[in-house]
């Protein structure tokens, strides 16, 4: 009994401390904020001066990873079969191609077919493809942190960053870097569980689905969330939260009523759980 009371007291104290900490910056005064604004402005100029490419090209590249990963899975599956069976023709085919280097190489099946195959694949295959996507995302996330560390953003102090500010960093800076927007909503229980809501998740905005998207369609689009799952884990790993301590899952959520209609009917939620 006594102990629980003490715990309670302590947690209240902790809460107070958090409040106090959040109060200090505002209490310091206006001079600080103008300095801050100046730095922000400088950051903006710096960001704008960096070389750029088209976002359409970037989104196509990101999304094409899904059929690509499925194509790789298929090729590797075929190869395994060939080792067992009598599948010499595939090998000879590629060798024939080697001679005429400038001829176009054999093409994988079109993306839409690969996406459908991914949907129909058994669970084991499906998971291997998703793992591949998460790996790509993980590496992107790792390096995005580096990119942002060197941006001189005055809001970032990695030295004394608690988990909440790390998540804020993901919601604000990482998202803006990748999707030109911020996460719409961040929820947490202050015990290592976070929900990141993005109601207009960029990579799938160009997907045309019926107004009432069917369960099947939603399931087919789902692999397109996995790279970002990897990105979140990658960023966390680069700031010192080992991937085995992090669980990240993506799922659909309903978009809030007041949001204007977008082409994709569902919002996306990333559920992140970090064990400390």
């Amino acid at each position, binding site marked *: 009994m006594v102990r629980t009371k003490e715990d309670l007291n302590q947690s209240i104290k902790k809460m107070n401390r958090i409040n106090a900490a959040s109060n200090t910056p505002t209490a310091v005064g206006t001079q600080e904020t103008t300095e801050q604004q100046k730095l922000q402005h400088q950051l903006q100029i710096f960001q704008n001066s960096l070389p750029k490419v088209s*976002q359409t090209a*970037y989104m196509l*590249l990101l999304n094409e990873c899904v059929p690509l990963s499925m194509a790789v899975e298929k090729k590797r599956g075929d190869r395994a079969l060939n080792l067992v069976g009598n599948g010499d023709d595939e090998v000879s085919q590629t060798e024939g191609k080697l001679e005429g280097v400038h001829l176009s190489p054999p093409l994988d099946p079109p*993306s839409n077919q690969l996406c459908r195959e991914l949907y129909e694949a058994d669970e084991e295959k499906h998971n291997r493809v998703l793992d591949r996507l998460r790996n790509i995302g993980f590496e*992107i996330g790792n390096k995005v942190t580096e990119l942002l560390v060197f941006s001189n953003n005055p809001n970032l102090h990695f030295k004394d960053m608690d988990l909440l500010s790390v998540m804020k960093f993901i919601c604000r800076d990482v998202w803006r870097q990748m999707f030109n927007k911020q996460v719409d909503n961040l929820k947490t229980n202050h015990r290592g569980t976070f929900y990141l809501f993005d109601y207009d998740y960029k990579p799938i905005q160009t997907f045309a689905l019926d107004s009432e998207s069917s369960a099947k369609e939603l399931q087919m689009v789902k692999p397109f969330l996995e790279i970002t799952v990897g990105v979140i884990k990658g960023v966390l790993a680069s700031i010192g939260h080992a991937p085995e301590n992090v669980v990240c899952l993506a799922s659909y959520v309903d978009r809030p009523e007041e949001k204007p209609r977008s082409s994709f009917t569902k919002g996306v939620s990333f559920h992140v759980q970090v064990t400390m």
Partner: protein
Amino acid sequence: MSTPTQSKSLKTIGEDTWKNKTEKVNAELFTLTYGAIVSQLCADYDRDFQKVNNHLFSMGYNIGVRLIEDFLARTALPRCENMVKTSEMISKCAFKIFLNMTPQVTNWSTEKDAFSLMLEENPLSDFVELPVDAMKQLWYSNVLCGVLKGALEMVQLDCDVWFISDILKGDSQTELRIKLNKVLKDEVPIGED
């Protein structure tokens, strides 16, 4: 006389579209994303770089057939009557709008059906250094060949696209070759003529 003014207008169309009608992302992010994809492929194939090349090409093809739609919608440019026009469109508009670069067009074949693009700054391979074993076989930016192949096929130009040299391989320049095989015919529906 009309050619210089036309080519100038192509250039302005490209620059205008890039400046005003294109949402942009950091080129370094693009570079490192592509790097992550290539390295995953190399890991998947145990450094069998020929297969990696093929997958990159294929991936590019699938992007190209979609990218051309965006390109035509953005620029509203008409069909090119010859390969010279096509080459200008590619270098001054397409590369400008999507990658913010303008490669030089050179090395025309005598029949004017093949040309080279010189990629001086290539946002795909910025800060990239290939390990020794990859230098021989890997065409790091092979996705570009696929994109061009796919996009050109959608405007009825059957082309072969391949890299001749790459700075990453120790060559002095990065040269991409485009060769027209044939102009695909517009199909008329059966019974229409």
